[in-house]
């Protein structure tokens, strides 16, 4: 049994994959709690897809250098997040329709750009479904720094983010800078998306953002507890998913997401009415 658990840890790539996926799982759980509570799941999914053209441009300019790709992903993600946020505030067409149009268009543009490179299939698969086993030491340090920064900002602005999420009129009467705080949240989501891309890819990312918080919301009625439980579910999904992937040869991103989904279904079924 212990051999079963320890054997994968003899490989550095597995250790790095475990460390990276646990870190992003925790950040996704905390940021995802806001996404679930504010009903932004579709926004999160769209944002993840929307960064593909940015990643594609980076890919065309600098090949598959992970470090460069990360910065392209981050830049696109922040721009897209603030952009979609601004579009959804305007009237005219409904918010989810506007987001749908932008995200599908951007996603298609990304695929089109990547498909101009002859050997694109492998790299496209990594962008779409993640490549957590390819995490380098540099990736790990970057992920750690940004993860710490996101958690620090959530901690510092905890009560303000709570106020704008629960009751924006209250936030106005307290004279909070509501727009700036909304944008802060959009940027935090964007950075989360950028650091999570390598672990599960853009296509599956929304699961990391919403499934663990949704599972936690079935079990608690307090916000800090919900964040904590979501982080535990997320981290456990990352670890179990990677082991699962190691022993069965299932794609790692899919294994992590399937584990998180299993936690959700089990919690839903075992919940007393």
């Amino acid at each position, binding site marked *: 049994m212990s051999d079963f658990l320890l054997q994968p840890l003899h490989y550095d790539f597995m250790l790095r994959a475990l460390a990276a996926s646990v870190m992003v799982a925790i950040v996704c759980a905390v940021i995802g709690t806001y996404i679930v*509570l504010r009903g932004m799941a579709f926004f999160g999914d769209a944002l993840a897809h929307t960064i593909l053209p940015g990643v594609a441009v980076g890919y065309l300019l600098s090949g598959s250098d992970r470090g460069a790709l990360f910065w392209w992903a981050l830049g696109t993600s922040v721009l897209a997040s603030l952009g979609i946020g601004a579009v959804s505030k305007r009237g005219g067409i409904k918010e989810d329709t506007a987001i749908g149009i932008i995200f599908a268009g951007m996603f298609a543009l990304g695929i089109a750009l990547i498909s101009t490179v002859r050997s694109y299939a492998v790299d496209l698969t990594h962008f779409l479904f993640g490549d957590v086993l390819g995490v380098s030491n540099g990736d790990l340090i970057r992920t750690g720094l940004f993860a710490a920064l996101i958690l620090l900002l959530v901690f*510092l602005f905890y*009560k*303000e983010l*709570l*106020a704008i*999420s*629960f*009751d*924006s*009129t*209250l936030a*106005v*009467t*307290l*004279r*909070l*800078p509501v727009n700036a705080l909304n944008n802060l949240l959009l940027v935090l989501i964007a950075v989360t998306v950028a650091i999570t891309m390598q672990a599960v890819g853009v296509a599956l990312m929304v699961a990391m953002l919403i499934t663990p918080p949704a599972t936690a*919301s079935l079990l*608690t*009625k*307090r*916000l800090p*507890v*919900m964040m904590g439980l979501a982080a535990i579910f997320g981290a456990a999904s990352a670890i179990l998913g990677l082991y699962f992937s190691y022993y069965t040869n299932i794609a790692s991103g899919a294994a992590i997401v399937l584990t998180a989904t299993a936690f959700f279904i089990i919690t839903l079924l075992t919940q007393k009415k």
Partner: protein
Amino acid sequence: MTKFHSTLLYNEAEHDHGQPILDVRHLTVRYNGIAALDRLTFHLHAGERVAVVGPNGAGKSTLFKAIVGALPVIEGEINIFGSHPSGHVCIGYVPQRNNVDWRFPVSVEDVVMMGRIAKIGLFGWPRALDRQRVQSALETVHLAPLAKRQIAQLSGGQQQRMFIARALAQESELMLMDEPLSGLDAPSQEDLLTLLDELKAQNVTILVATHDLQQAATHFERVMLLNRHIVAFGAPAQVLTNEHLANAYGGGTLQVIGDACCEDEPQP
């Protein structure tokens, strides 16, 4: 440190108590060019209780949004104690119950503590004083035993009282309530109206939007009859006359209103 924080994000204006708590002048709000509020001019005295009545679409919610600052005021002027509302955290807002996400994972106590956010200041966490204020606000509205409940587990009347407690914790001097009585059963309405009477002791000024002309007439010192413009504003007996009501609601609905309420009101 605290001083720096409070000026960085939470900037509070001085109160000039020689000025009215709320002074609205020539306020006009337009949606797509059509005036939802047309040249409103009025002021409130500290400590009074005022009901705003009028038909659906009269602009009651718009007026409240403009006063709290959720709508930018482009035409006209709103002053709180003689200065622009943006410097004041003393306006409490009690939302309509159907505008609240009751499944949100917060307890009664958490919601009331949100009223303290400005006083706690940037990067701060609740201190003993804040917990004390929350506790005493909960006691004022008789919710202290339910402090740990998730908010969906409250009755409609308790939910309204929770938001009043939040406004008290905020140290609001002007409390705006948007239809606090609608959807409540009769005993809960009575409880709430009694609570509003009790708040008079704390010198809180109260502005309530309501559909119920009867309650407006019996529980409030002044009534504003609104239909995009102020039809009448003053003591209930002077405002709720057949002529004014016909003006505000249109002649066709007058009979309905006459039947629905106020039958034991002396008609001048």
